[in-house]
């Protein structure tokens, strides 16, 4: 298999992936998107012999455009630009989950500080204000009072970028000090872990403590539905337990499309990069079969 890796920074996740691919004898083409140009009919990147292109861009903006261009050249890209488009934006993510019947936190979007304040007041306190684009728990606000709401909204309105004027307000889910991260390929879980913290944000990037987690039937079903809702692929599905730890009732708050998995690899006995590469090999074989069956033009 000849695999292209789109990147702008090699994290430990990419190192694990590169090592597994090379150990299996696959050819790897590292494509630093910062050095490339993408025109309407081709790119400066050498993609001519690639069976598969894996998007591992750290910057969401680059991920969105690079995958879109590459797919237009006929490359098989994981994850697809459609999936990236939904997952990169929390509002689109929430809509896709809700439309697929996946339980997800109650969410409202408003475009002015006045309308956002009304939305916040309708939830009551605490509630949560999140940037529509962002990761690792950055710029997330748990709002405990009207005074705090007014101050945060004013700050957001003056931050400059138009995305900060898309106010994404959400109910505060009283999770049991932890949430659940599931790494899945086309809805099939590879590994799952809890992320625990005394802080309301439990992201591993914020220092949340990780531990392996066994998914029950309900969670398995939700992971599959959430994956399908965003178009499938290699995804990180995040769930919160509603009604306490082990309640068996969940809400899915988001799906991530350039998912990091180093923490899962350490927290669980699963050889995560091996499982990811197994799936990539199956994807490449599928693509190759489809191309062979396609009628010659």
């Amino acid at each position, binding site marked *: 298999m000849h695999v292209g890796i789109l990147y702008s*920074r090699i994290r430990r996740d990419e*190192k694990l992936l590169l090592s597994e691919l090379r150990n299996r004898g696959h050819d790897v083409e590292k494509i630093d998107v910062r050095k490339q140009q993408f025109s309407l009919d081709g790119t400066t990147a050498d993609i001519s012999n690639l069976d598969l292109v894996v998007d591992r861009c*750290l910057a969401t*903006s680059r991920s969105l455009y690079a995958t879109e261009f590459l797919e237009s050249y006929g490359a098989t890209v994981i994850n697809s630009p459609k999936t990236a488009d939904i997952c990169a934006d929390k509002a689109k993510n929430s809509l896709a989950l809700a439309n697929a019947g996946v339980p997800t936190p109650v969410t409202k979007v408003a475009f002015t500080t006045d309308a956002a304040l009304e939305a916040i007041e309708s939830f009551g306190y605490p509630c949560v204000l999140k940037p529509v684009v*962002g990761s*690792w728990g950055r710029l997330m606000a748990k709002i405990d009072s009207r005074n705090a709401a007014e101050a945060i909204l004013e700050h957001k309105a003056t931050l400059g970028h138009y995305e900060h004027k898309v106010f994404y307000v959400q109910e505060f889910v009283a999770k049991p000090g932890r949430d659940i991260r599931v790494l899945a390929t086309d809805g099939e879980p590879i590994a799952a872990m809890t992320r625990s913290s005394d802080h309301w944000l439990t992201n591993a990037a914020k220092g949340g403590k990780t531990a392996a987690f066994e998914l029950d039937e309900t969670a398995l079903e939700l992971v599959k539905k959430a994956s399908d809702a965003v178009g499938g692929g290699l995804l990180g599905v995040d769930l919160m337990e509603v009604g306490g730890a082990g309640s068996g009732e969940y809400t899915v708050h988001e799906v991530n499309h350039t998912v*990091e998995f180093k923490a899962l690899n350490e927290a669980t006995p699963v050889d995560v990069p091996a499982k990811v590469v197994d799936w990539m090999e199956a994807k490449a074989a599928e693509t190759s079969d489809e191309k062979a069956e396609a009628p010659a033009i």
Partner: protein
Amino acid sequence: MTEAECVECGAELSLHDDLEAGEIIDCGTCGAELEVIDTEPPVLDRAPELEEDWGE
């Protein structure tokens, strides 16, 4: 293990054998984040600052 110089403080850095272009390493002396620009021979530069759309 190879060595390179920190572009921020000039300290000598010991680099791992499985170094990858695009990887970030920390200077143990000054704490600067450095990006590996090339591996043979190793070339380091100051890593880009965190951008708002970075993440997963």
